[in-house]
């Protein structure tokens, strides 16, 4: 039996809440985010923001959370401490509310009152427009690249497609082994360790753990030519990237920021600039119609390519 597009969306909600969602009949492929806030109308982001009539109370939020955890909340404790859980298909579900102190100075959401379901959608071939700029044809290897953008502009999507192209090969470039450290399972849409989104045929993916540990495992045992990491930010991340760089692996990473300067100013990542680790910077931005564009810079900040529309090539 064919699965209706809206069925996928329904699978995030318990049975007693499905009728209302069914009534709206959303096309799952169009939905980017569902925001649930306690005692506030539900909002769905699909190109534009849509306000729904449903309002979920405290008990409803707990019920949804429990259902999202497959009635096994204990199995998601670590993710809960990090403020999100992963769903089948690589969809990330942000959770928060009242926090309570947990061990090692960490916090855990005691009362779940806000849930943000971010759907992972695969956009293949969007990296084809940038791949020529990040590949060193002379040495036959990719250049260390940092993808920079504010949240929600598709850093991870671009990274995933870049990984796929590097892994499978593209035009004259032969494919190579790519190691992915996917802490949150977002790059590969990993669910219980298996990649559900296409990251290429020569890609090994480590889900969970931390970046340093992941890079160490990849370098020692999987001989990657390139290591891909999502959302670097702290000092340990910078150290992990430096370790990968000095181990002879290429690095492709993403970071939150609105400009190159934003990243340079980050104390934790500043060292990477001083050591000239990254040779290419891809800055993502969006126009008024929310179309995503990429600008590419070299290590000195010279623009190699002006705003280029990122699109899925037919």
């Amino acid at each position, binding site marked *: 039996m064919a699965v209706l597009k809206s069925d996928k969306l*329904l*699978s995030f*909600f*318990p*049975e*007693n*809440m*499905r009728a209302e969602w069914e009534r709206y009949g959303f096309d799952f492929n169009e939905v980017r985010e569902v925001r649930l806030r306690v005692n506030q109308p539900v909002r769905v982001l699909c190109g534009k923001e849509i306000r729904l009539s449903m309002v979920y109370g405290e008990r409803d939020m707990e019920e949804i959370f*429990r*259902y999202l*955890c*497959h*009635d*096994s*909340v*204990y*199995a*998601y*404790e670590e993710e809960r401490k990090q403020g999100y859980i992963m769903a*089948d298909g690589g969809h990330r579900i942000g959770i928060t509310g009242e926090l309570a102190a947990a061990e090692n100075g960490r916090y855990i959401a005691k009362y779940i009152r806000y849930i943000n379901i971010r759907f992972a959608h695969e956009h293949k071939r969007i990296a084809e427009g940038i791949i020529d700029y990040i590949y060193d044809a002379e040495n036959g290897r990719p250049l260390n690249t940092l993808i920079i953008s504010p949240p929600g502009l598709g850093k991870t999507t671009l990274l995933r497609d870049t990984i796929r192209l590097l892994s499978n090969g593209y035009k004259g470039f032969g494919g190579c082994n790519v190691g992915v450290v996917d802490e949150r399972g977002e790059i590969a849409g990993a669910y*219980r360790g298996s990649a559900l989104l296409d990251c290429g045929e020569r890609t090994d993916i480590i889900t969970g753990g931390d970046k340093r540990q992941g890079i160490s495992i990849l370098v020692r045992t999987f001989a990657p030519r390139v290591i891909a990491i999502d959302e670097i930010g702290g000092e340990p991340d910078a150290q992990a990237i430096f370790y990968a760089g000095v181990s002879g692996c290429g690095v492709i990473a993403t970071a939150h920021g609105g400009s190159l300067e934003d990243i340079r100013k980050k104390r934790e990542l500043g060292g990477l600039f001083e050591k000239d680790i990254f040779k290419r910077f891809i800055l993502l931005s969006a126009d008024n119609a929310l179309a995503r564009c990429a600008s590419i810079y070299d290590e000195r900040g010279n623009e190699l390519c002006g705003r280029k529309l990122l699109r899925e090539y037919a």
Partner: protein
Amino acid sequence: MTGAFGFGYALCQEMNNVLFNFKEQKRMLLYIINEISFMHKPMEEIFYSFGGRLKEPYASFALRIAEQMASRNGRTLCEIWHDEARLLQKSKECPKAAAAMLFRIGESLGYDGDKMQIDALRLIDAELSEEIENRTRENEDKCKLVRTLSVLAGLFCVVLLI
């Protein structure tokens, strides 16, 4: 005489069937507790992994629950468990006393913390152990009595007919 002996044998079988069900339920609990303790696996995966190792009807019971959970049909584990336990009870594969225990196990699932979940299951496990011990002792005595009585009843009928 054969009829009387057969009746006694059937009665003993029924008593042993309850005991068998309790023992399988205990094995099921041990699997669940261990998988939570060491692997922190979610329930759906736990049911898949131990489903094949249990004897029927519990193997199918666990697999059916896992499949329903995997289908994300909107029903909670508690609801799925309850319905499957009711089906088992109706099919007569699970005697009344064992079915009651099965419902209780279902009610003790769904705790937030792993320690809380394990403690809740251990409580049921302790009850099951006690139940198994008592029934094993009682069954031996009762089976002996039932068999003797059925043979005597058979002999009495034979004498009466002669």
